[in-house]
């Protein structure tokens, strides 16, 4: 493999290169550690059923995290994914009586793409920081959701719709399969396509990218559009899972998503990261949440552990990789 995550080592000894690899991919060590701890702590943890649950539950944040990773490697951030998800969820359910299930799903998907496009265009044209642009969108799109749903939770008329996502391949639900497929696909995009390499180039050294003739603006618009579309995919899967569009769906999920991506090791300032890392981050988060629930820890412990783990991950990252930032 020649992608950015694995071509790091210059060291000569195989031991050294293992250490190198671990330093750049410490999330897997972390994930393994959490799995071991919870396996010892709860007899229910290492069951096929529970693993299946973790995969499915993680997949939702995971799909958001795929888009977020693209945007973050670009050196940007998208805070509006939770709201976009809610709108796509609402449209794909709300429009079903009018235009039928699949067209409704398609419109939901389009809404995500359109909003992502709007975010990207605003970032590219205005030169505003994406944090501001998408913070505005986070507030505003949620408003759109309420306008559309009329404040009510919309329900599917035919509950067969909720069975669509109930396809299982062994312990893998359709949602989990889709997440893994998308993650692999986007890892391929990142490592093997022009757009993917541009993503690193833009996030890593935007001047160099610009001077090399990469159309930075168009590039960013594409990534925001992808991020919005993936958020819509997540929203549609959620609509299939719940059979209902809650106007409050996906609230604060953008935060969980950012946490998962950063936990994985993708750099907030851009230029560095991969879907592998994001998969690691997503599942670490999912395992932590699931494990703490199985151990019957009170809610506040879960929240506190999450905060502590995140800070720990940052400190570790800083100590291991000496990456200065403020």
């Amino acid at each position, binding site marked *: 493999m020649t992608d950015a995550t694995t071509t790091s080592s210059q060291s000569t000894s195989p031991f050294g290169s293992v250490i190198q690899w671990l330093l750049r991919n410490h999330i897997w060590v972390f994930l393994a550690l959490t799995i071991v701890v919870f396996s010892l702590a709860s007899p229910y943890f290492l069951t096929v059923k529970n693993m299946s649950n973790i995969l499915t539950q993680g997949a939702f944040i995971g799909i958001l995290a795929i888009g977020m990773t693209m945007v973050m490697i670009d050196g940007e*951030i998208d805070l509006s994914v939770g709201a976009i998800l809610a709108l796509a969820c609402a449209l794909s359910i709300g429009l079903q009586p009018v235009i039928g299930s699949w067209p409704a799903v398609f419109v939901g998907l389009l809404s995500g793409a359109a909003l992502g496009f709007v975010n990207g265009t*605003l970032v*590219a*044209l*205005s*030169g*505003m*920081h994406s*944090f*501001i*642009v998408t*913070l*505005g*969108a*986070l*507030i*505003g*799109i*949620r*408003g*759109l959701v*309420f*306008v559309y749903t009329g*404040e009510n939770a919309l329900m599917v008329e035919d509950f067969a719709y909720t069975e669509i996502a109930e396809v299982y391949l062994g312990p893998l639900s359709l949602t989990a399969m889709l997440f893994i497929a998308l993650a692999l696909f986007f890892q391929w995009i990142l490592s093997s396509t022009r757009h993917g390499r541009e993503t690193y180039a833009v996030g890593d050294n935007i001047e160099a990218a610009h001077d090399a003739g990469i159309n930075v603006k168009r590039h960013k618009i594409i990534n925001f559009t992808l991020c919005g579309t993936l958020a819509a995919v997540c929203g549609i899967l959620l609509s299939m899972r719940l059979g209902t569009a809650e106007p409050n769906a996906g609230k604060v999920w953008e*935060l969980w998503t*950012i*946490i998962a991506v*950063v936990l994985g090791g993708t750099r*907030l300032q851009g230029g560095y990261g991969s879907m592998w890392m994001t998969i690691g981050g997503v599942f670490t988060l999912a395992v932590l949440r699931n494990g703490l629930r199985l151990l019957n820890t*009170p*809610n*506040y*412990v*879960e*929240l*506190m*552990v*999450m*905060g*502590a783990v*995140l*800070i720990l991950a*940052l*400190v570790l990252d*800083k100590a291991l990789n000496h990456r*200065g*930032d*403020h």
Partner: protein
Amino acid sequence: MQDALKGLLRRHGLIVAFMVFLAGVALNTDAFLSAGNILDVLRQVSITGMMAVGVTFVVLTGRLDLSVGSMLTLLTVIVVDQHNQSGPLMAMIITLAAGCALGAINGVLVGYIGLNSLIVTLAMLSFLQGLVLFYSGGSNVNITNAQDTWFAVFGRASLFGIPVPVVMFLAAAAVAAFVLKFTTFGRQIYGVGGNETASVFSGIDSRRAVFWTYVISGLTTGLAAIIMGSRVMGAQNTIGQGYELTVLAGIILGGTSLLGGSGSIGRTVLGIAMLGFIQNGLLLLGFPYYVQWLVTWAVIIIAVWIDLGAKRGRIFA
């Protein structure tokens, strides 16, 4: 004449647009520009405003503080609970101390250890939410002798016809503006935010400066919690949820740059007040609550874009 107008728009485009908005609402509802309503709005924004005053310090150094919403919840629970246990004065002292201590934790992590402020304060947001539930055991707290405690002053009383929380907010803003404009510490903040490396080369301890901005942010959140506790005479475990976004939106709307080094308390006060008047105006006009979110979205984008465009002399990047 035309040039003068252009200059005015360029420099104060935001204020002009805001005035147009105020006039528009006022034409449609008599109540809007009444003294009573204006004071009401100011009272309503005094909590977020108070927090925004402190967070502005953080933002001026080029950092973020997303933990203030959860911190507000925790500190409100603390002030109310301690009021019942140790009396109003001790409760306030404990609250402010707790606010500073929590700010100091952020400050050490971001300032001294040099971790990314977005993630640190996000982690803190989650951690503090947990801490609130732990502290309160999940239940609501109320001030038991709400009738006869002087603690009610902060949320409910008026001074010369001006609500006390408004007086506190504006006083804090004035002090903060003074600190930023006229003291060496203020100069250090702008220096660090404007160019951290150059500031270090100028002998400024940027880590220390950043640390103190978080302490200040914690302190103003403590003050906001006192207003909140006194106004509500109780606390829910969710009472400050989402306030960090309102605070940030207000600061951004005012035109303080998230990259640090430019902005002011005056701008923050303006931004926060604008959010308050927009919300109030839309409610008075009878729009559903969530329409204000759509308007906020539009206003943030337009205002920040204009501001940025004016600074760079070009609309498009």
